[in-house]
């Protein structure tokens, strides 16, 4: 179990060190308690659902002729807000760049940002799903998820 706990802590620490997550994710973890034992997973699931819809919307909007940059900017603004709310730092940072390309009405820049966004989001989701699996394994073995403190 010590090995599992170490693995869990190291994996989580790496996600912060590599910039996937920021302090807002820690805030979510601090909110989780016995009355809401799955709070973080519930919030992240909402983020995944939200993000997938927004990324699809952005992709469709970029295929329109002419491109409605104002609409795309609105979607990206929502994605930025969602990312900030859960501590998805890398995704949030790409959104900032993306908005600049929307403002400049630069379609190629927007397409490139969308590709980066999709890549970062996919990686984040994969990493988080693995983290949650490790937490569930630890919980099954020890009875509760260790806090990050």
């Amino acid at each position: 179990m010590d090995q599992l706990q170490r693995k869990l802590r190291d994996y989580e620490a790496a996600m912060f060190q590599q910039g996937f997550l920021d302090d807002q994710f820690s805030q979510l973890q601090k909110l989780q308690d016995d009355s809401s034992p799955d709070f973080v997973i519930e919030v992240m699931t909402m983020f995944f659902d939200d993000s997938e819809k927004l990324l699809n919307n952005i992709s469709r909007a970029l295929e329109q002729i002419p491109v409605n940059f104002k609409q795309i900017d609105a979607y990206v603004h929502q994605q930025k807000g969602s990312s900030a709310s859960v501590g998805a730092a890398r995704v949030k940072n790409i959104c900032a760049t993306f908005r600049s390309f929307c403002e400049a009405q630069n379609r190629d820049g927007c397409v490139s940002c969308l590709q980066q966004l999709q890549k970062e989001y996919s990686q984040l989701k994969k990493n988080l799903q693995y983290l949650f699996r490790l937490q569930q394994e630890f919980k099954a073995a020890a009875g509760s998820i260790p806090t990050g403190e």
Partner: protein
Amino acid sequence: MASPQNFASKLTALVVDDHKIYQKVHQKMLNNFGVKSHVVENGKEAVDIHWHGKKFDLILMDMDMPIMNGIEATKELRAMGVCSTIVGVTSRSTEEEILKFMEAGLDDYQEKPLTIPKLTSILHKIINSNPI
């Protein structure tokens, strides 16, 4: 990590935000402090709930919302005579936007996302200015 022990349990709060994640996170933060909270999705619902006689010690007001935004809602609430502490919580950050929001009648402004320390500070100010 132990959360503060319900020092604000006599307070009530209204979360005004169209974003489901922020609704959930802000409501959970408030609940962890013992604050009884209610959530509405836009400024019009915030105004309507007050017309129906509800009162809150704290209103967390987002700026960008459909139907009625936070600036309009804050102006209307103040015009109705609502004296609650209204804290604007938004991801907008230009000085001009913040000023416009403050001038609508906010008591305070916080950049999103709201954190536990920021909310602690807000709740302490309310309790200290209205000792029960």
